């Protein structure tokens, strides 16, 4: 299948729209960019001499917002001492530490960019960005530097800074991770020590060793191994006991038994001077298991932003009417009944009732509708929506906990509880495996007790060690880690637990419309000329007029060179714009608005697009059709998915007929339009009740609960932070083919896990009978276990083989060249 060659934006990797000319000089080359936002950031980066960023990055940056006309004082509120106290703390010498959460970090080079840029500010003592937690740690001198300046700098690089607020969950994550790392470290160093003594002891077994030194080495091994068992292996014992009390058999049980019995037997041998010691096996076993578990934990926590707080999307400050003037006030200090000013272009911070003024609010975050709603005195506006047109005054109705946004957040956490967990393969296999191993060990011990009581313990121990579930325990995390790394090379970030396993089993895909199958923004489509102007002249005029508008429609014209010489522009909320061009007055907007100037303005051509009229006082000039265009690759991707026998569904909150029309275009038969977030969840749950395994692809705030309830989920690159935090996979490169790539990799990963299990189980099937018959001494069992684990790891590494292009510098310059579109399509 042939795909047209597309130019991708040098900064963010989105397709550069036709007819736009945004460029920047990067390292002597003129690079094309998609929008003024990317241009501003790229120019800033090049101007600061930081183009190393583009050479080093391994993923495209996120598309920044377009620079605002007037650099608002939106960050000045962070200079407020009360607010700053929430995320800063002072040191004794007068300097201050601040922690910021940075949105939009896609790879390690981003952290370098931010660090280097901030380090140049006067007053910065130390700056460091934590990639994993997307956190900026700043140590600075408050006398020389204002925090608002820091926010401003980070924001101008195209990232989204916000205060990092302490969270119990987040602290717990970090503490857990440190604890497991400490355990791995102790077990690793202990393994080296005991291994050293072990070699001496084994050599002694072969060539003879005096009882004195054998005793010495054994005692020292006992000392070190006991510490490792007590410190590092503790979680195995705790988990085994915890599960045993509720009657569950987990992998930790034979692990604990093997470690515990081998240690106990070796202690007895050391004390009595009879029998073998296996301290080296005990410690090695502990180390490898802990390492496997640590890797698994890493995968789970990677990009784990599940603690994301919706409240943090609201502005931190609002203008409040106090003492006969408007003053910037911290949002949390607002009380019910306070009068606030909601500025045009800002996110509304509270649920409020409008008392004066009128404007348009864009509520696509709640309902997916692209057309803004008109509000006037007496209407409700909601926190988290966008005031697009004019300043309005309103009274506060409730605090955050009772707001509509908080309700949405609660439904997300309910969705989390409702999510059906697919039992992982490892869970399924482990419980019967554990039962079998315990049974075999018990029978072996009993039989040998009758045959040869002296050897009973050692043979039983060999059985436990050779059946060591180390390879089994590593089978899943090793494959998942490998697949996750490989997908990251393709611009797909995996962060959900079990995401890949659920994805591999997917039977149905559910798509959101706006921003997922479509680009999520209005673009100029058809143009009907009615007057003497050419298409280009008409668009230039329209672009000139829209410069004076905050209406979302204006974005469609942002990439078109505007006409010069427009004067005395006025805009009427929800109607249109009027201006004078030369000696003529021109209007652009709705039909009634244009008919106000020119009564003979004709009807729009059809109902397919969103039509905007343009006329002057002499005659009609034309109709410009705006459309949320479908992503180029969408039809081919949907076809490819259908060919795999997957069910395709469309769920949209949009109530217009755009949804059904899009479905028709893509031949999707299952469509639900104007669905609320709750209805979307119910739709997905209904599918799940019929036995389907559902993968959801979405982007909006309103998609967040349904992304959570689906078995696996993708968030698109333009997704809101909430949606992103609920999705299992985030597509960072804006390419729908990533869904297919993800599915392929998930299935490949599943196959690899199966192979790993097959190997581990067949190894056990051969080894256990030999051990039962007493042919395998525990040290041989320990070596066999390590080799079998190594094989599992090597097999898993095959998963990352084809996806890794990181060594190639040329490819790194344009991360998307890693995903040749036509190769995927064929």
């Amino acid at each position: 299948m042939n795909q047209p060659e597309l130019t991708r934006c040098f900064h963010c990797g989105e397709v550069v729209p036709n007819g736009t000319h945004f460029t920047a000089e990067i390292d002597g080359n003129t690079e094309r960019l998609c929008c003024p936002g990317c241009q501003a950031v790229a120019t800033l980066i090049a101007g600061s001499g930081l183009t190393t960023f583009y050479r080093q990055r391994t993923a495209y940056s996120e598309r920044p917002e377009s620079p605002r006309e007037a650099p608002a004082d939106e960050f000045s509120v962070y200079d407020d001492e009360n607010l700053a106290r929430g995320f800063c703390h002072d040191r004794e010498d007068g300097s201050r530490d601040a922690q910021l959460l940075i949105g939009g970090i896609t790879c390690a080079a981003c952290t370098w960019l931010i660090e280097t840029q901030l380090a140049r500010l006067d007053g910065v003592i130390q700056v460091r960005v934590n990639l994993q937690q997307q956190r900026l740690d700043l140590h600075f001198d408050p006398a020389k530097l204002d925090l608002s300046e820091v926010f401003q700098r980070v924001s101008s690089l195209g990232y989204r800074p916000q205060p990092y607020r302490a969270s119990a969950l987040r602290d717990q994550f970090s503490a857990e991770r440190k604890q497991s790392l400490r355990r791995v470290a102790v077990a690793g160093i202990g393994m080296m020590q005991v291994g050293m003594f072990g070699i001496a002891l084994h050599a002694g077994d072969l060539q003879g060793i005096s009882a004195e030194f054998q005793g010495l080495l054994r005692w020292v091994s006992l000392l070190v191994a006991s510490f490792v068992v007590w410190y590092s292996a503790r979680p195995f014992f705790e988990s085994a006991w915890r599960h045993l009390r509720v009657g569950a058999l987990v992998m930790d049980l034979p692990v604990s038994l093997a470690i515990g019995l081998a240690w106990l037997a070796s202690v007895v041998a050391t004390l009595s001077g009879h029998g073998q010691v296996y301290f080296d096996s005990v410690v090695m076993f502990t180390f490898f298991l802990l390492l496997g578990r640590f890797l698994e934990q890493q995968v789970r926590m990677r990009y784990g932003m599940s603690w994301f707080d919706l409240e943090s999307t609201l502005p931190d400050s609002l203008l409040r009417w106090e003492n006969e003037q408007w003053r910037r006030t911290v949002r949390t200090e607002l009380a019910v009944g306070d009068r606030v000013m909601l500025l045009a272009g800002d996110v509304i911070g509270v649920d409020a009732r409008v008392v004066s003024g009128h404007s348009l609010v864009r509520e696509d975050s709640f309902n997916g509708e692209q057309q803004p709603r008109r509000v006037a005195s007496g209407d409700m506006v909601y926190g988290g929506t966008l005031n697009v047109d004019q300043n309005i005054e309103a009274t506060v109705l409730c605090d955050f906990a009772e707001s509509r946004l908080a309700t949405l957040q609660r439904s997300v956490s309910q969705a989390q509880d409702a999510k059906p967990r697919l039992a992982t393969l490892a869970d399924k296999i482990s419980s019967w495996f554990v039962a079998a191993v315990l049974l075999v060990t018990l029978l072996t011990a009993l039989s040998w007790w009758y045959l040869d009581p002296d050897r009973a313990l050692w043979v039983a121990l060999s059985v436990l060690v050779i059946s060591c579930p180390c390879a089994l325990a590593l089978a899943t995390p090793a494959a998942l880690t490998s697949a996750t790394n490989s997908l990251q090379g393709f611009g797909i970030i995996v962060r959900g637990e079990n995401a890949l396993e659920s994805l591999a089993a997917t039977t149905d895909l559910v798509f959101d419309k706006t921003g997922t199958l479509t680009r999520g923004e209005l673009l100029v489509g058809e143009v009907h000329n009615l007057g003497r102007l050419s298409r280009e002249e008409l668009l230039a005029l329209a672009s000139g007029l829209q410069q004076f508008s905050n209406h979302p429609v204006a974005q469609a014209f942002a990439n078109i060179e505007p006409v010069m010489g427009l004067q005395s522009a006025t805009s009427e909320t929800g109607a249109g714009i009027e201006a004078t061009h030369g000696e003529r007055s021109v209007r652009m907007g709705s039909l009634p608005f244009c008919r106000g100037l020119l009564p003979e303005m004709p009807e729009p051509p059809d109902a397919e697009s969103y039509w905007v009229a343009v006329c002057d006082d002499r005659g009609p000039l034309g109709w410009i059709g705006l459309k949320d265009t479908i992503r180029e690759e969408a039809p081919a991707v949907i076809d490819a998915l259908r060919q795999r026998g997957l069910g395709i569904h469309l769920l949209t909150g949009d109530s217009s007929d755009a949804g059904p029309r899009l479905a028709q275009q893509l031949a999707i038969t299952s469509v639900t339009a104007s669905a609320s977030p709750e209805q979307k969840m119910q739709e997905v749950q209904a599918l799940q009740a019929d036995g389907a395994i559902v993968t959801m692809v979405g982007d909006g705030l309103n998609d967040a609960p349904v992304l959570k309830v689906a078995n696996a989920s993708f968030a698109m690159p333009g997704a809101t932070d909430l949606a992103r935090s609920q999705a299992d996979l985030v597509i960072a490169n804006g390419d729908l083919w990533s869904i297919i790539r993800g599915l392929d990799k998930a299935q490949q990963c599943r196959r690899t896990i199966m192979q790993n299990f097959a190997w581990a189980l067949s190894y056990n099937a051969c080894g256990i009978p030999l051990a039962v018959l007493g042919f395998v001494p525990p040290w041989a069992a320990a070596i066999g276990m390590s080799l079998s684990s190594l094989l599992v790891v090597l097999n898993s590494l095959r998963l990352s083989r084809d996806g890794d292009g990181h060594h190639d510098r040329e490819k790194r310059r344009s991360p998307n060249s890693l995903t040749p579109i036509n190769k995927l399509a064929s």
Partner: protein
Amino acid sequence: MESLYLLIPVALIFCVIAIRLLIWAIDSGQYDDLDKEAWRILADDESEGDQEPPRE
């Protein structure tokens, strides 16, 4: 062979020191961000030679 009576305690002391050092490094946050440090060493930059680990 009697030297073992000296060498083994010495080895154990080194072992304890190594563990203490590692735990100190973990607690002071040096292992918080493994992905990034691997990358940082390859980045040729001028301003970061003097960085100390972040405090928790």
